[in-house]
């Protein structure tokens, strides 16, 4: 098997290296990717169209909003799939095969818990900053959501999962993930109801007291919040199920 694998990888590697010779040189301004009208349009007109300084956020949430919405749905489905794979109910949950040594209740470490107590507010505040400031600096819904989810994971690591589940239970997390997608799709539907196309945020200027450009700016924040909800909830749900073999009890 190893020889076959080596042969296959070497063959593919030779093909890829042969192809790499034909790529345009490093950082070439006239390479097809850089010289294409699409990329130029995004760079040249993002400021005019949406007044968002961070082009990546604008392309992510506005120009390619439909794509991002379904990426969020993929994350949601992955969260549900993990719960479906690992969750055990009824008699299955009490089977001795699932018991572990670490399930014996131990006192959480004093130094760790106190450090985490100090860190959590900072992490969560930073998550909000990353989410809200994603238009102007690197960041956005995905990063803010992951950092927010990490803060809940940190609680579960320092104490145990039930302590974190007091704050965000897995059932509520799944609901929250759905709410995130509904926020995203709701903004899209709202712009549809106002006469535009799905996710055509400029139409929101009819209900918001701002220009069409700034309506796109603010709607982007709205969809990023939806994304952050979903990502936060799914990251925590995945950790909760992976760390306890789907029993949702005990520590790591």
């Amino acid at each position, binding site marked *: 098997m190893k020889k076959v694998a080596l042969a296959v990888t070497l063959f593919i590697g030779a093909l890829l290296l042969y192809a790499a010779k034909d790529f345009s040189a490093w950082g070439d301004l006239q390479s097809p990717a850089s010289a294409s009208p699409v990329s130029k349009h995004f760079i040249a007109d993002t400021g005019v169209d949406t007044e968002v300084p961070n082009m990546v956020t604008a392309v992510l949430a506005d120009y390619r909003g439909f794509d991002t919405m379904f990426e969020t749905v993929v994350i949601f489905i992955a969260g549900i799939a993990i719960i479906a794979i690992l969750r055990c109910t009824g008699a299955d949950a009490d089977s001795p095969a699932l018991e572990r040594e670490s399930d014996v209740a131990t006192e959480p470490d004093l130094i760790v818990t106190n450090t985490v107590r100090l860190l959590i507010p900072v992490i969560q505040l930073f998550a909000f900053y*990353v989410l809200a400031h994603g238009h102007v600096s690197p960041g956005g819904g995905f990063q803010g959501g*992951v950092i927010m989810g990490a803060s809940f994971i940190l609680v579960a690591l320092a104490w145990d999962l039930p302590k974190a589940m007091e704050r965000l239970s897995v059932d509520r997390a799944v609901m929250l993930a759905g709410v995130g997608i509904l926020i995203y799709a709701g903004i899209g539907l709202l712009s549809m109801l106002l006469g535009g196309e799905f996710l055509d945020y400029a139409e929101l200027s009819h209900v918001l007291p701002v220009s069409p450009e700034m309506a796109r700016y603010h709607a982007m924040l709205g969809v990023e919040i939806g994304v952050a909800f979903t990502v936060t909830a799914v990251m925590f749900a995945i*950790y909760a199920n992976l760390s306890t073999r789907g029993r949702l009890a005990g520590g790591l």
Partner: protein
Amino acid sequence: MTGLALFNLFILVFMVVAAVISLRLKDLLTASVVFGIYSFLMCLLWAEMGAVDVAFTEAAVGAGVSAVFLVATVFNVKRKSSD
């Protein structure tokens, strides 16, 4: 060669080394941590290449959450690997 290109080269070489080490280690917990190092080097490289948003995401996701997921799984299955 400029300083930046040298930095780039340094990271690229170390990344390959980290990838190979994380796949050769027989202790899965260590392998997961080395994989976190690999992700962090990748994130540095992207930040240097101007893809700040991608680097940020990789720092939060690759070096943070996915390493935690791997460790969580290794704790629940066997820690030793045969290869």
